[in-house]
């Protein structure tokens, strides 16, 4: 059996691709899985502290915190849709449209960061939460909250820069469809992580008063 396969495609002469994806894409997938483990650990740490502390603070009022974070969710989900459209356009050889869709994606990411920083400032100024202390005497809250959302925001900012580089290259006729797809994988992953941070951090600690 193996001799037939070997005759058709020699084992040691390259060209075999058991996953049928290019190496850039596979590399990005490996990075995403390892990054997913990092975020899983941080989310777990937050959730553990949340469940183990009966007097866990609930500083997220419906307005502005929950409204802001819901709009941020909308921004990221919509930017994921525009990113998919960019890959779609690139696959059909339409560079101009792909560049436009990537710019729309970057706008979504930029809006997310702006809203998130506003929400951080609201928390710091109005609720007096810092990474090390807060009025409710549960310093773990600030530590886990800022570490988790800060790391995620860093990912979004890096993603916007990454997409900017991809966008200008696409518009100048460089880079191929697979490069856009790989940057899209990263962007969707950032979106995916927020799908866990939003309910676990914001909704679990929403103020009901």
């Amino acid at each position: 059996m193996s001799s037939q396969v070997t005759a058709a495609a020699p084992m040691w002469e390259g060209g075999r691709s058991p996953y049928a994806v290019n190496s850039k894409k596979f590399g990005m997938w490996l990075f995403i899985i390892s990054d997913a483990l990092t975020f899983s650990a941080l989310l777990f740490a937050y959730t553990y502290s949340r469940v183990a502390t009966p007097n866990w603070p609930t500083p997220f009022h419906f307005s502005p915190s929950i409204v802001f974070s819901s709009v941020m969710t909308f921004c990221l989900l919509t930017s994921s849709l525009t990113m998919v459209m960019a890959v779609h356009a690139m696959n059909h050889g339409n560079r101009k449209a792909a560049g436009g869709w990537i710019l729309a994606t970057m706008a979504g990411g930029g809006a997310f960061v702006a809203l998130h920083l506003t929400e951080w400032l609201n928390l710091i100024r109005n609720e007096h939460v810092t990474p090390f202390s807060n009025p409710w005497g549960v310093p773990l809250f600030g530590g886990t909250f800022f570490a988790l959302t800060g790391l995620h925001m860093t990912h979004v900012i890096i993603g916007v820069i990454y997409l900017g580089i991809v966008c200008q290259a696409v518009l100048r006729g460089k880079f191929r469809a697979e490069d856009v797809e790989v940057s899209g994988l990263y962007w969707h992953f950032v979106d995916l992580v927020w799908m866990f941070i939003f309910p676990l951090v914001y909704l679990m600690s929403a103020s009901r008063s």
Partner: protein
Amino acid sequence: MIAHTEEVEHIAGATALTFAKVWIALLALTGVEVFLAYEQVPVLIMLTALIGLSVVKAALIVAYFMHLKFERLSLFLTLFPMLIFCVLLMLIFLGDAARIPAMRPPL
């Protein structure tokens, strides 16, 4: 999961309509989560419901937006079982978190 390359090419042209439907589904699930946050339910039940909904959303994003549904099964099997296994190993300790408040001596 599709193992045949011929079909990968067929689905590589997944329509914009499919993506728009997935986007609407994701927004709807987010709406359900926000609604749940204001229902009076015990913390662990709320946590389970929210994580359940988030896993569904993550699956939609990975399958359609990240295109994994249309890749070879071998790629999925290489990447995801170990991630899920590691996360489950961490979750073993969540039971401790729920017990800790009851174990503290009264002040």
